[in-house]
């Protein structure tokens, strides 16, 4: 996020698109509700009439996968009615002419045809954005889990630059990161193209710096493979040995049949986890690790706040801290790593290696709580709002002309419904944790597929009736939840329960993924619904 969660309560206007915040980020949503109660305006854009829509001043129910057309339509109105921030565009951005030409192809009438959002709602949204400034753009995986994920994000960046809503409190582009430390895993360089602190592996000076610090030669400057390239590389013979740390890939990657086949092809597979799960049976070695509460360290939240995580107990049996496991393997290759604790690793390696985290130390966090990066020095308070005064890291903000393209798998006659998948309030991912927490399972003991009232009536499906949801990959037997929040033609399911795991239905073919990020189309899969005989 460029901005902070607390600003949801004080912003003038919130533009929420593809975020089911009340379930996926419940505490963040409480600030949004406080804001709306105190006068913040709220625009919600989502295929489902989810809970946020209840608080919205304008709710736009767009078709799955039509975000770019919708956003181009909004920007078309902003430019046509001269409601954009001329000054910001001129001073802080470039490539404006490209944007103007592109969005000219998306008058509200066309944007409405593609997105299903009425023309007058598109105009109304543009006018609200054009007159109430600044506005925060907030999004989650509803934006990114598409074949156009990256372009969806760039469209939102276009919108905020056009409105001059960058670098100010109550503005910015704000992705709500899904997992507790997905921000941190990025920050730490668990990415094929970056070392920790977003330092590129392909830049020779950077790899030399890391080589010097670590006391080795010959670090690779070739960017590595992304998850899907690695898993697909297993059956292809390109990747032979694979190490999965704390991810239940079999349950969480799209197309369970495909990912199982991939892992089964590994010559050697290490799985490091706290429980057996659907992925461990494929392992050659399973390494038991310390869980939350069993080790000292840090998490980084979605607003770039690095906070302490503390140990209260020993790991059970012979389970060991994860960093210890990696260190021990390095030792067997002849390297003696000096750090022996989370504190050592952060204070003596991570902070010194990464200018953005240089001023964050365990002592400071213990004294004052979490600190938001960038924090270049120990006397720096941390950074709540990025790109202050319109200064972007690359210099000027670069407008991108972006065309709408349909989802990789559009509904057709055989598979007339679109399936979106995600997370529900009470559970988390494949339930390795929440499935073992008393109370949570009782509250939600099984998954149901959400379908609309008109579809249920047309197909003669009663609420709670077991149906079959079928895609080109497979089928799932599941109870129907007939919901007034669902639009016609859409099915919504989570991936929390193994038997009804929506990932059985999704495509694992990288042709259906975002071509740049290789993010699977978790939000758009063509399915049909069958009544059981």
């Amino acid at each position, binding site marked *: 996020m460029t901005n902070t969660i607390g600003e949801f309560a004080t912003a003038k206007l919130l533009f929420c698109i593809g975020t089911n915040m009340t379930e996926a980020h419940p505490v963040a949503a409480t600030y949004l509700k406080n804001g709306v109660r105190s006068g913040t305006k709220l625009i919600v854009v989502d295929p489902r009439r989810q809970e946020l829509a209840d608080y919205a001043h304008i709710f736009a129910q767009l078709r799955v996968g039509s975000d770019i057309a919708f956003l181009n339509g909004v920007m078309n109105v902003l430019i046509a009615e001269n409601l954009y921030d001329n000054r910001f565009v001129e001073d802080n951005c470039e490539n404006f002419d490209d944007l103007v030409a592109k969005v000219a192809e998306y008058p509200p009438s066309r944007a409405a045809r593609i997105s299903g959002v009425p023309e007058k709602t598109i105009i109304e949204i543009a006018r609200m954005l054009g007159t109430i400034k600044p506005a925060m753009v907030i999004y989650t995986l509803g934006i990114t889990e598409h074949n156009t994920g990256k372009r969806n994000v760039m469209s939102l960046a276009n919108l905020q630059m056009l409105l001059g809503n960058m670098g100010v409190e109550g503005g910015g582009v704000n992705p709500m990161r899904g997992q507790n430390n997905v921000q941190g895993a990025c920050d730490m360089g668990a990415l094929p193209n970056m070392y920790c602190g977003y330092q590129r592996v392909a830049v020779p000076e950077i790899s030399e710096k890391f080589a010097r610090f670590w006391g080795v030669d010959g670090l690779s400057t070739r960017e590595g493979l992304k998850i899907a390239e690695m898993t697909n590389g297993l059956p292809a013979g390109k990747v032979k040995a694979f190490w999965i*740390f704390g991810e239940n890939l079999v349950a969480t990657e799209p197309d369970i049949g495909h990912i199982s086949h991939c892992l089964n092809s590994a010559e050697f597979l290490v799985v490091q986890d706290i429980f057996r799960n659907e992925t461990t049976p494929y392992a050659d070695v399973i390494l038991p690790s310390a869980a939350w509460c069993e080790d000292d360290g840090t998490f980084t939240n979605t607003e770039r706040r690095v906070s302490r995580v503390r140990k209260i107990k020993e790991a059970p049996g012979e389970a060991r801290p994860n960093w210890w496991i990696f260190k021990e393997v390095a030792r067997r290759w002849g390297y003696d790593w000096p750090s022996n604790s989370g504190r050592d690793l952060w204070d003596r390696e991570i902070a010194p290696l990464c200018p953005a985290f240089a001023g964050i130390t365990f002592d400071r966090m213990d004294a004052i709580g979490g600190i938001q990066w960038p924090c270049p020095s120990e006397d720096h308070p941390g950074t709540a709002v990025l790109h202050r005064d319109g200064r972007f890291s690359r210099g000027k903000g670069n407008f991108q002309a972006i065309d709408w393209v349909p989802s990789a798998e559009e509904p057709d006659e055989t598979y007339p419904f679109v399936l979106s998948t995600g997370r529900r309030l009470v559970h988390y991912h494949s339930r390795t944790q929440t499935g073992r927490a008393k109370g949570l399972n009782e509250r939600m003991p099984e998954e149901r597929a959400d379908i609309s009232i008109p579809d249920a009536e047309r197909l003669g499906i009663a609420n709670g009736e077991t149906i079959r949801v079928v895609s080109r990959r497979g089928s799932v037997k599941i109870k129907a939840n007939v919901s007034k929040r669902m639009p016609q033609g859409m099915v919504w399911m989570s991936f929390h329960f193994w038997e009804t795991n929506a990932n059985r239905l999704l495509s694992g073919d990288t042709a259906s993924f975002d071509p740049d990020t290789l993010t699977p189309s978790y939000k758009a899969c063509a399915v049909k619904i069958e009544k059981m005989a």
Partner: protein
Amino acid sequence: MGTSLVTAVINGKTLTAQPGMTIMQAARAKGIKIPSLCYHPALESSGACRICLVEVEKHPKLLPACTTPLSEGMVIFTHSPKAVAARRFVVEMILIRHPLDCFSCESNGRCDLQDLAYELGIEKSPFQEEGNVCTDYALDDTNPFYIRDMNKCVVCGRCVRACDWQSGYHAVDFQFRGIKTTVNPPVGMKLEDSDCVFCGQCVQACPVGALIERKSIGQGRSWETEKVRTTCAYCGVGCQLDLHVKGEKIVRVTGTEEGMPNRGRLCVKGRFGYDFIYSEERLTKPLIRVRKGDMKSGDDLFREASWDEALDLVASRFKEVIERHGSDAVGGVSCARSLNEDSYSMQKLFRMVFKTNNIDHCARV
């Protein structure tokens, strides 16, 4: 700011405060404790309990500190005989119907009512009520997360305001009148069917033992527990939690009131989703595959091994693959749930030791 500070005197001490601050806020900011049941710094004051009544010079009546703005020149006595007598009367009234089962109450030692009675030296209520004083409410223990005991409710309304403001649901509110007043979900509706999302914010707000986490029962007394602050292990909001720990056991979890970004707020997973760490199903020993087989019949595919054996095997197999096929024939996926220090170490292993950048995690999904 253009507005000048307000100066007043509390218990003989001169203090200044921002304009608009209540007597309670100004006093607390200076470390002066005015007792209360219904006041909570994160919630709008309601002035309901009348425990915080204080004497103010030139005011004929006692004033509730939590709703009265501090004004210039006020001379306030928080514990004058008149204020203490009023406070005592209120507590004695509450104790007409409040059970005195502190021995077995989970809230023992962290109960604001108990502290008040102690401070005021009240053993039991001197008032004897002949009629129905509403002490026979059935325990509401139908939901899996927390127990509601309306017999212990002091009708302070903190739970109502916490639900409304901190959680944004307003699933419960006052019902009935007078001594029959209780806090409930909408009439005729069970909590499970109401708007309640079981975030437990009401439980955290309760000053007595009317709302109790189910998993905490019998796990430890408040004075036996130590508070350890940490960060939640679920979503990306990164809520700050206080783990109330006895030995190695989490007795209960509360949101850190001053913690950012959540300021004391939590959701159902953050507050109640912690006990997976104690599961009997945890992996406790390294395991090595003994045979290829049906992936579904997990158990007999593996045998237990020592760390040395398992780590030697991992190190040597990776070495073998790299020698035969090059560094880029190995790859790894890190964990978006685990510590920064763990992800740093994994990418360090792959880059520094294995000499490949084939390291990723689920960032883009």
